[in-house]
């Protein structure tokens, strides 16, 4: 019994043995944080600073300093270092999360103004851009089609490339492929767009179409798929490959039936992240798909629209109604990516190797 009591951190307790030392109570960091925020806000108000960012910075600084001082007093220098590292991690975490949450908040609150069933099911056909009305249907359709085509091109090629690199590639060719994949990862999207523009549109003479944009998106997507799939395949233990080979299973079947199923969760997540990346691309779409106010369900002929392009166009118009449409479309875009992500997580969880203990 006495053990249980002794183990619980007691506020400002005196050390009881050579191994025990005084410890701050559990609520201490929260209290210090609250105090720092209060002090930061108070000082900010008193000094008349307008920027809330300055208040936040001051609070964060106070939090780290106060943690250090309090811990040194109570727990000693070594614990103080430990606490200061912990508090820095917390500050960084908050710094990362605050913009994210505020972005989500702003998009949702502004986007919901015009987002409704009508907005989702109508195009801008016959709508004056400076006035209210119209919708995002044509852009949503365009985005779905372009992303789907890009995925159909890039995912199989990327997957097979990764399988080649991990399972077969040993020599110079594999090194060269790895190098080019690395280079491709860094290609700016506008360059991919220009590449397709110069070959497909200018040299071969095709007009703007969703397919042209999808090709540029596929170029951007492929290296991401290769890289993530490669990492996932490398995680598959060699023992599983050997177990399968030792059963007299040919290598290609081993890859198909043992290696890929074991890694499928991670591969799916990687492909979904790649999709999320290209869904927001504007530059190649602007060059190759051109944009339109009308519904064009055929991705192989004629201009289409897409969500990021729509956001850009509406924002450029600049009237209140157009900007509201831009926010709503941005919300649709984020929701689209989010739904894809959730689906990917679902698949990953469903397909992941089960431990079943």
């Amino acid at each position, binding site marked *: 019994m006495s053990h249980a009591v002794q183990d619980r951190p007691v506020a400002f307790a005196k050390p009881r043995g050579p191994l025990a030392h005084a410890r701050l109570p559990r609520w201490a960091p929260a209290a210090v944080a609250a105090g720092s925020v209060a002090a930061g806000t108070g000082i900010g108000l008193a000094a008349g600073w307008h920027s809330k960012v300055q208040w936040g910075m001051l609070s964060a600084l106070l939090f780290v300093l106060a943690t250090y001082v309090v811990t040194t007093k109570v727990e000693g220098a070594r614990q103080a270092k430990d606490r200061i590292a912990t508090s820095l991690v917390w500050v960084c975490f908050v710094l990362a999360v605050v913009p994210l949450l505020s972005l989500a908040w702003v998009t949702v609150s502004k986007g919901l103004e015009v987002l409704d069933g009508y907005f989702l099911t109508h195009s801008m056909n016959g709508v004056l851009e400076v006035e209210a009305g119209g919708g995002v249907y044509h852009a949503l359709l365009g985005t779905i089609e372009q992303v789907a085509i890009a995925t159909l091109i890039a995912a199989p090629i990327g997957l097979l490339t990764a399988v080649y690199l991990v399972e077969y590639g*040993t020599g110079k060719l594999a090194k060269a492929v790895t190098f080019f994949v690395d280079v491709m990862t860094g290609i700016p999207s506008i360059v991919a767009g220009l590449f397709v523009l110069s070959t497909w549109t200018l040299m071969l003479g095709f007009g703007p179409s969703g397919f042209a944009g999808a090709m540029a998106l596929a170029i951007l997507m492929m290296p991401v798929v290769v890289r993530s799939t490669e990492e996932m395949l490398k995680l598959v*233990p060699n*023992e*599983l*490959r*050997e*177990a*399968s*080979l*030792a*059963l*007299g*299973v*040919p290598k290609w*079947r*081993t890859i198909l*039936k*043992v290696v890929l*199923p*074991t890694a499928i969760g991670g591969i799916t997540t990687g492909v979904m992240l790649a999709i999320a990346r290209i869904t927001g691309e504007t530059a190649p779409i602007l060059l190759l798909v051109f944009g339109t106010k009308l519904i064009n369900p055929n991705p192989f002929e004629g201009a289409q629209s897409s969500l990021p392009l729509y956001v850009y166009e509406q924002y450029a118009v600049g009237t209140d109604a157009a900007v509201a449409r831009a926010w709503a479309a941005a919300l649709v875009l984020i929701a689209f990516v989010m739904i894809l992500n959730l689906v990917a997580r679902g698949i990953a969880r469903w*397909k992941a*190797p*089960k*431990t*079943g*203990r």
Partner: protein
Amino acid sequence: MAKRIDVSGLSAYYGAHKAIDDISMTVEPRSVTAFIGPSGCGKSTFLRTLNRMHEVTPGGRVEGKVMLDDENLYGSGVDPVAVRRTVGMVFQRPNPFPTMSIFDNVAAGLRLNGTYKKSELADIVERSLKGANLWNEVKDRLNKPGSGLSGGQQQRLCIARAIAVEPDVLLMDEPCSALDPISTLAIEDLIGELKERFTIVIVTHNMQQAARVSDRTAFFNLAAVGQPGKLIELDDTERIFSNPSVQATEDYISGRFG
């Protein structure tokens, strides 16, 4: 059908490094042959040359002949995949397929090779699991993942998986080294039963185990670290453990080594 293995002049390399040198031996059918020897002397390497798994390792290369009855495993035109169907293998660490259920693990060899009749599959799985002394423990949860079993059960699952494809020879690389004494005993009993049907080769670091399960024992040694391993002697297990003909063997077995 258990088959005789006849190895002559076999050397194996990892890239430029020669791991085993000029090994010749005969492994009798329907018997258990144990490989013993210090760490790094090439027991695993040699074992893996017997079903052409050695060449799966990057840089792995083999010289010499391995006759299975009267067919050279390294003859021209021999398909390593076919060799591995004839010569099965159980690894040191249990390695069931994590995406598959217990049933699917045992059926994996047949399914992945496409060499089975649907109606027979359940029978084969049951027979193999019974053969591996695992049936009673798993018959109620055949659809649960194989990785949910204990280490000893997983190893017996791997043995069931290996015998489900009806090989002629079964190679085991330290199959009990990760197991507790009870599971070890279960697997040793199993080996005693399996030798009625298969030719069995087992690598072990456990002298008692070699003495308990094997009919013949081969002692491998290496002159120095970095030198290739060699076969020192192969004889009836009783002789090896009572009256070996080479001094090094006696030293190793009695613990007066190195």
